[in-house]
């Protein structure tokens, strides 16, 4: 039996190594695309300044049997197929957004599942492994839903926008095939990773299992990067001749000016988003389970998910800044359409939503102090932190120009309020958002140390808190001083001051974390964590986090797509359909709400799946083997 088992294992490993080889060969080919994607067939001669010469063969080629890159056609409204009773744009909007929601979720969850599993292996604590497995269980249905919506989206685009798809295929045909192949790789890794979990854990093959998890994430990452290249191309096309026809270098089309920042922004946002959805799952289980031990488990799971969300949420604004900066760099016109045109009010809405995210996050952390022995030592800080967050939020939320009645206008004498008007400009908003981040990080720091006491006579054990306090004061002073100073300098210089403000915040985030590590090395616990001992309202804070995040993602999807205005591919391929106009914000908000309602319904289905599966398989013996978490009872 043992021999057979060994043969099986060897065979399995051989197949795996082969598949892994093919996968990474694909990935590598994307990395060295210059050769792989060089469309020699229609780029007759290589030219240093390419443009016109490379495009010319497309026009001059006499052999009609050779496929040529196409220039974007000039369409009329009648060229767009119509399905009776279906608004093409709305149909694509709904399906694309649902695909993105599930796609983001299933790309994010395996990342932190893998990290949690690794922590479990390193600490030899099976609770991490159990939790990681359960996260993956929740995500499994998401893979099917994401793929189903992806398939539907592709069909809708082919049926409703055939010329657009033909053009995109002319540029990204090879990438699309690789993209589809990557699903085979991801499916292989996902299924072996998930279904092989128990067997590999029990059989001591944890390293192989972790390697499979790495494969899931590598495949997922490549899928995301490739799909992002199409989106980035539509916003900022590259690799095209003057007539908009593809020049033959696919890498140039992929790595356009917005691809990098879009990748980073989506990657970080996906992690935060995935964390918020699993946090909602855990919150639901905390609220519905009666068993104290299970409640403790899911409270811990909720906290871990929340931690993941925070890890993504804190750096997310910086990635957003970079993306916006690159949009301005690519096209000032597009940048101003985004921030100063018809979408300007959208950023007030975004401020409200992000404010809700930060408020709910902080509230959850403050509630968490209650389940921590020793937490009461820091409860005095809640009120000042809350006040700072509220003030920062209100400053961020204040619009520059107020909409007033004639009477109000006459009373104030200006469209800008004499006092509040100062808070509406970027100088105040950059300051407010950095202070908001600092305050949230402070909440997180007091929670993470609530049940710890530094032990020893080392410098950091004795002075760590004082140094951190000094760091916060210095950082806040610097951020506010820069903010005030920026009122007195020209706009072009002012925008540059956001960089030192952001750097100051990052110094506190990184520096504060390092000091924590040094300070609490070998610390002793003040008391045990009372897992499961959380008020109901704290779990609703997690629901608020998940719903707000999802709604925000939908809204930002609208603006990201909307700044292309009446272009399928910005400046290259004009949208001449009857839907070429930019929808108003209220219309978009109602659309987003509708999509999120559909998403919530499907998420409930996704949550129900692991519950359905666990109803038959509950193994009390297995639970007994796992060390129990401290409960609040």
């Amino acid at each position: 039996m043992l021999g057979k088992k060994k043969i099986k294992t060897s065979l399995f490993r051989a197949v795996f190594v082969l598949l892994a080889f093919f996968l990474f060969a694909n990935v590598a080919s994307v990395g060295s695309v210059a050769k792989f994607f060089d469309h020699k067939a229609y780029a007759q001669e290589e030219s240093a300044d390419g443009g016109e010469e490379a495009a010319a063969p497309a026009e001059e080629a006499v052999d009609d049997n050779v496929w040529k890159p196409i220039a974007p056609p000039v369409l009329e409204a009648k060229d767009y197929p119509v399905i009776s009773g279906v608004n093409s744009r709305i149909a694509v909007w709904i399906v694309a957004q649902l695909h993105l929601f599930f796609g983001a979720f299933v790309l994010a969850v395996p990342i932190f599942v893998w990290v949690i599993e690794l922590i479990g292996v390193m600490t030899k604590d099976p609770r991490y492994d159990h939790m990681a497995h359960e996260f993956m269980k929740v995500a499994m249905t998401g893979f099917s839903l994401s793929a189903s919506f992806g398939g539907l989206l592709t069909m809708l685009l082919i049926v409703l926008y055939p010329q657009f798809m033909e053009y995109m295929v002319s540029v990204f045909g090879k990438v699309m095939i690789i993209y589809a192949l990557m699903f085979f790789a991801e499916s292989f890794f996902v299924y072996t990773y998930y279904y092989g979990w128990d067997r590999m854990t029990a059989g001591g093959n944890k390293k192989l299992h972790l390697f499979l998890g790495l494969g899931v994430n590598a495949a997922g990452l490549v899928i995301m990067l490739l799909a992002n290249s199409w989106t980035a191309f539509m916003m900022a096309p590259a690799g095209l001749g003057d007539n908009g026809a593809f020049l033959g270098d696919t890498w140039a089309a992929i790595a356009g000016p917005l691809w990098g920042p879009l990748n980073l922004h989506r990657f970080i946002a996906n992690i935060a988003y995935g964390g918020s959805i699993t946090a909602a799952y855990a919150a639901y289980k905390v609220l519905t389970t009666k068993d104290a031990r299970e409640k403790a488990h899911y409270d811990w799971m909720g906290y871990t998910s929340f931690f993941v969300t925070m890890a993504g949420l804190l750096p997310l604004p910086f990635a957003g800044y970079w993306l916006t900066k690159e949009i301005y760099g690519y096209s000032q016109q597009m940048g101003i359409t985004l921030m100063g045109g018809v979408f300007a009010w959208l950023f007030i809405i975004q401020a409200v939503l992000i404010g809700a995210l930060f408020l709910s996050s902080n509230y959850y952390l403050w509630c968490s102090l209650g389940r921590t022995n020793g937490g009461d030592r820091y409860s005095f800080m809640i009120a000042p932190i809350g006040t700072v967050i509220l003030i920062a939020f209100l400053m961020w939320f204040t619009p520059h120009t107020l909409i007033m009645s004639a009477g109000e206008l006459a009373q104030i004498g200006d469209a800008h309020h004499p006092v509040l008007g100062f808070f509406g400009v970027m100088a105040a908003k950059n300051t407010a958002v950095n202070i908001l981040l600092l305050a949230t990080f402070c909440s997180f720091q007091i929670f993470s140390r609530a049940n710890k006491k530094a032990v020893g006579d080392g410098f950091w054990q004795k002075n760590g808190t004082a140094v951190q306090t000094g760091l916060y004061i210095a950082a806040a002073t610097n951020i506010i001083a820069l903010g005030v100073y920026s009122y007195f300098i020209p706009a072009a210089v002012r925008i540059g001051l956001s960089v030192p403000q952001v750097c100051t915040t990052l110094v506190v985030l990184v520096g504060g974390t390092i000091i924590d590590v040094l300070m609490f090395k070998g610390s002793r616990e003040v008391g045990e964590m009372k897992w499961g001992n959380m008020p109901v309202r704290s779990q609703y804070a997690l629901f608020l986090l998940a719903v707000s995040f999802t709604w925000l993602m939908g809204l930002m999807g609208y603006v990201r797509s909307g700044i292309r205005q009446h272009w399928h591919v910005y400046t290259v391929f004009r949208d001449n359909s009857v839907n070429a106009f930019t929808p108003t914000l209220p219309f978009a908000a109602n659309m987003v709400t509708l999509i999120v309602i559909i998403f919530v319904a499907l998420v409930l289905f996704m949550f129900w799946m692991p519950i359905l599966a666990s109803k038959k398989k509950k193994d009390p013996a297995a639970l007994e083997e796992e060390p129990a978490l401290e409960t609040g009872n």
Partner: protein
Amino acid sequence: MRDLFPILIFSLLVMFGYAGFVTFGIPLIVPAPPPVEEKLSGDITMEQYVAIGDKIFHGKGTCTLCHNTTGHRAPILEMASSDGEPVGVRAAERIKDPRYQGEAMNGEEYLHESLVDPSAFVVAGYGKTGTNDTVSPMPSVNKGAIGLSDVEMGAVIAYLQSAAGVDITVALPTGEAPADDGEEEEVTVAANAQEAFDKFGCSACHMHPLIDEGGDIGPDLGKVGATAGSRVIGLTAEQFIAQSIIKPNAVIAEGFDADTMPDDFAESMTVSELNMLVDAVLHPDKKPDQEPDSTEGE
């Protein structure tokens, strides 16, 4: 399922709260419809050509995204400002600047060059970051997303020269005149706002102190001036009213329907008529004889 109910209600309330805030808590701004190319022939007057340039400048050309006093990301062009005289005046001086590297020989050529090759001369302080004012962030307006035709660029130049009060040197477009029925229609220019209201049939839908018997299909023009400056970020009261006349669907006042007002006044209205109407809406109590002099013939 019973456990789910409060969670679902809570989630729905959050979503509806956000949607409600967007719908009722912020002003409604209707984005402009996609621009269309102006079909021009040689059979237009210079006033009409200037009016079309005005329309392109504030619309399809997207010039005011940057060339405005709010963000001031680019030099102010239409009027005197901290950047100096209006660009129509200063254009002729630019080509004498030691930094100027272009090929223009006069003000009109300079303006044309600025539209198609904005980096030929970058005004100090307005260049791309790190380029020492050698590269302009402005796109070539005859390409890409804007894609103005030569005739449209000519209209913009005519508008900028008109706004600056200098001689309009740009030539009227030549080309096939649209087919007509053989009857010449005499174009008369309104002498004051009251005549302009009559000429363009404003009284059919609007009320105003200068209109004897107005309608209520459109907003009361005696009242809209008070809030015009705060309706759209980046547009002054004058710009907003002008936009509302030339592009009536750009922003629809609450309680009124879109697509009711004719959207071709840019073709039929002279700049002086437009200015008179804007002024009358902004200052509804001003008497007709207090109108500024017509700018005809400039």
